């Protein structure tokens, strides 16, 4: 039991160390590149690259990362509470916001779904007809 707890603490600590190291590296890279991308996204990409090239082991970060992802939605509650300072703007803008968000989301959903399905279908047709002349595979 004690051994188990010890390993959990160690895993959480090593995970935090890796994630913050990636974040700090991300901050630095983001700054010298003129803030092209937010530091956290650069950090995320660095973490992915580090895992991909086996610079770090998945076991070092997996547990901590899972917890972060699991509780991520809680983390944006305080930011959203900031709307109490803008409640008048929000109430005024709410009809426009609702209409825009709903309509634009549905358009995007259908466009992306249709486009990818079409592409996927075309690819499968090509894959099943290897003999046919390229470009006429339909």
């Amino acid at each position, binding site marked *: 039991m004690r051994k188990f707890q010890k390993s959990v603490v160690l895993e959480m600590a090593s995970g935090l160390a890796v*994630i913050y190291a*990636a*974040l700090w590296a*991300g901050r630095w890279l983001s700054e010298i590149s003129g803030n092209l991308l*937010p530091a*956290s*996204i650069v*950090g*995320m990409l660095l*973490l*992915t690259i580090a895992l*991909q090239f086996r610079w770090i082991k*998945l076991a070092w*970060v*997996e547990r*901590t*990362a*899972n917890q*972060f*992802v699991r*509780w*991520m*939605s*809680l*983390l*944006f*509650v*305080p*930011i*959203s*509470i*900031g*709307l*109490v300072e*803008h*409640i008048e*703007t*929000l109430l005024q*803008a709410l009809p*426009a*916001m*609702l209409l*825009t*968000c*709903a*309509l*634009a989301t*549905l*358009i*995007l*959903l*259908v466009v*992306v*779904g*249709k*486009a*990818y*399905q079409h*592409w*996927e279908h075309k690819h499968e047709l090509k894959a099943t007809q290897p003999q046919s002349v390229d470009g006429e595979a339909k």
Partner: protein
Amino acid sequence: MVNFLYLPLTIGLFIAAKHLQQRFSVTWLNPVLITLSILVVSLLALDISFDDYNQYSGWLSKLLEPAVVALGVPLYKQLYDIKAELPRIAITIVVAAVVAIATTVGLALVVGASPEIAASLAPKSVTTPIAVLISEQVAGEPALTAIAVLITGLVGAVVGIPVLKLCGVHSSKAQGIAMGTACHALGTARIAEEGHQQGAYGALALVLSATFSAMLCPLIVPLFT
């Protein structure tokens, strides 16, 4: 003096709301929506300022950046399976990000929103921690963006799947990518209930669309405002 209490209160409400959602397994009983509604109404009714609330609760916001970094782990796991399709997915999502930003900002201005509000809505399809960062970059209001993201996610989670099926999108990969791109984490969570493949493609789309939108928003939004 009482300010430190808002932090455990926020966490407690969120956990209770999460249990409530799992108990009844209804998507629109979203824990963030419930926690947010209760706290906003209470703060307004009791005339408590945001600064008081945020004095300690703001600690949670500081964890957003490492949480985004942590998304690198699921991304790495997806990459392993999806490598061959990656170029195709990436191109789809770059185009989707342009369409998303342009239609959102355009529509907002057409229905009479101010440029600041239109800019705040631009990253509405991106997961909140990144959307609020983008919002700051394009001179929007992060609090409004957070609400827009929430509305978008709820729309997708509630009507997304019926709408996709109605329009003839039956491929599970296409459904996953559409939900992850258009309605971020909430849409991904909903589509993941349909199957592992949908969930994996949704998660990848979520991360990629956030990355591309962060690059594209500062370029596209100024064209409109």
